[in-house]
């Protein structure tokens, strides 16, 4: 049978598991091989993931499973993502959806965020977590590469109310060489579809001299959907098969980001310590509406929130936000 979770559309059999190795054919249905198995969970700030415009300040239970449908040269989590999931089962955590949600509650979390690997490879488990989370009043978000089929992308949008989609590159050459996918068409289609129903932020890791010439086209694409889609331009952290390569120049990339950034209301340049490009400025008057610290992939932090009610503190103009500002220990009392 053909798997319809992602656009690879792998052939599945009882003992053939597709590119991500997370599904099998069970009686004509694509079935998860490792339901309710988690590689890790941890407590994190929503800004770390990063979400800058969803539930600012919220404490999140960050979770992940195993496997991925991409093979990015610079994968940051290759020790979980690039190995056969079957070989990880002795160290995976076995937590049923209700228990995972209960764990989020005990830790005083406002949200559960799937952020280690690709959610499309564990969609049935995540759907059951979402059912439990909804009953508990816990919201759910995720990072995704956006390479799902239309059917699974619709389901992704039903499970998660806020998503950060990675738009890594546009050219076919880049997609083949750096991601091992044929083209970015499905990703562009899914960004548009998800932005119509959910809160969407977009992240682009920049590799100097490789995909930085596409920044203007990416900004134009996003602006064509909505100017207020927050765009996170990442300085690439060379990992995995790019570990020996140079770090991109912050001066060079920041100049390019500033040149194209006028197309969008909220453009950030970070993923390195001390970035100066992580505050939210009011699109109308330029006042600082939300202040943050950048700690690189170790996690960004909310410093001060000035945008009460989604309004600029200076001119009262609209600051696009999904959800309210959440005090960090707000849920401790009920944990």
């Amino acid at each position, binding site marked *: 049978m053909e798997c319809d979770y992602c656009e690879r559309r792998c052939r599945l059999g009882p003992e053939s598991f597709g590119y991500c190795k997370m599904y099998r054919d069970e009686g004509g249905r694509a079935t998860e091989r490792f339901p309710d198995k988690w*590689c*890790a*969970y*941890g*407590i994190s*700030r929503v800004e770390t993931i990063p979400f800058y415009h969803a539930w600012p*300040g919220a*404490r999140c239970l960050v979770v*992940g499973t195993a496997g991925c449908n991409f093979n990015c040269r610079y994968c*940051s*989590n290759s*020790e*979980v993502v690039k190995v056969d999931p079957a070989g*990880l089962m002795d*160290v995976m*955590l*076995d*937590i049923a959806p209700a*228990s995972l949600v209960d*764990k989020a509650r*005990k*830790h005083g979390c406002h949200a559960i965020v799937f952020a*280690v690997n690709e959610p499309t490879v564990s969609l049935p488990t995540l759907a059951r977590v979402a059912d439990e989370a909804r009953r508990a009043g816990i919201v759910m978000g995720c990072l995704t590469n956006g390479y799902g089929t239309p059917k699974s992308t619709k389901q992704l949008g039903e499970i998660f109310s806020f998503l950060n989609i990675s738009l890594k590159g546009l050219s076919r050459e880049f997609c083949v060489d750096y991601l091992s996918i044929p083209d970015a068409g499905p990703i562009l289609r899914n960004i548009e579809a998800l932005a119509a129903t959910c809160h969407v932020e977009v992240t682009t890791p920049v590799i100097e001299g490789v995909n930085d010439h596409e920044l203007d086209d990416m900004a134009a694409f996003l602006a064509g959907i909505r100017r207020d889609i927050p765009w996170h331009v990442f*300085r690439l*952290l060379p*990992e995995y098969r790019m*570990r020996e390569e140079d*770090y991109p*120049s*912050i*001066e060079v990339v920041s100049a390019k980001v500033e040149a194209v950034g006028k197309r969008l209301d909220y453009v950030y340049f970070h993923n*390195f*310590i*001390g970035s*100066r490009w992580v505050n939210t400025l009011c699109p109308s008057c330029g006042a600082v509406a939300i202040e943050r*610290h950048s*700690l*690189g*992939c*170790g*996690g960004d*932090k*909310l*410093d*001060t*929130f000035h945008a009460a009610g989604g309004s600029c503190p200076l001119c009262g103009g609209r600051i696009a936000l999904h959800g309210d500002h959440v*005090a*960090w*220990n707000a849920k*401790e009392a009920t944990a």
Partner: protein
Amino acid sequence: MTLAILDARQWQQTVDLRSGRPADANGPLVPMVGEVLGRHPFPGDRDDASNAWVTDTALDFVRHYDPGFAFLSYSQQYYSSRYGALPPEVRRAYVDNAFAEAARFARESGMTTVLVGTGELVPAADAIDLEDLDGLAVSSNWCAHYAGIYNPSRRDLERLSRHPHITRVVSKKDILEQFGGGPDDGSRLPDHMAVAARGCYFKGTSLRRLVMIPEPSDVIPVSQNLGPAPTILDIRPRLLDLLAAGNRVALAIIEGVGCSEFPAPYTTCENGKDWLRYEPGDAQFLAISTGRHPIFQHNGGYRYYLDDGERKPYPFSGYFKELPDGVIGKAYPGRSIAVGNRSMFMHVCTGCDVTCECFARNLYNQGLMAVLFRQDKAVS
């Protein structure tokens, strides 16, 4: 204001350490420190050149600041062994390299260099899964042997006490009694602490598979040039004695190495108190640096994320929301430096005038951070 210089490779930003906000880079040491950072990009926690980076960077500071005391950490062999299945000869080579780098520092700086091993590593044999407690179990990526237990049910406590891989469950009340704490000292202690048996670890939140974990050792080796130090708390006063006698002294922490692999003549010192044995980490660094057991503040079971809210002070200091007092760098009146590949511990746990650390979090290499606690000594 205490300045921190963040170096993300070919790009630096100076901030106020306490607020984390950009600050004017002024003071007599700022240009020199920025240049040292620029000359020594960090190769990575597990990179073969990581320990050489410590020596090279520290020697650069010695040339330009002439300190009387240096606090160094060599940690590459610890990180590599913790997460990688190393053949014995590779492990041996890494340990040899750490000591060779400490020796190179001693030779080229001319400082009396005291070596301290932080204890043996053993294979990570059995994981302890506490996911189905009625209460909450908290363990961290970097602490294998201790878990904080919150709101346990009677069933939880019975289960923990019968668990074959847990040696002890200690109540908050008992910890306070054993370590001389008063009623105000328990706010960062969990309701109970569970202690894992040798070779066992609490299944934590790490993405990476643990290969070797701290024993943790009853005793740790200290090179004989320090003189007798019966317990870990005695290292600090002995170092201060050497410094007061006019010696230029370096302390080199060699992580993940116990008596069995220590190549220099050594004496042993107790690595804890009662049931507590230190793993390489914040509590062990602080015990060495302050001469006190820091269990009330740093115990492996505290829910550190409670402190991590908006406007948290010291945002570039990890989970620390205040800098510990009584650290050795503050007690020494002469010039001091700290350099190490043990990230934030170098500035938080040493208090030296100028500290330089890798800004690596969970082994991701973000660059470097230097903290300038004292610039006034540069002109004295």
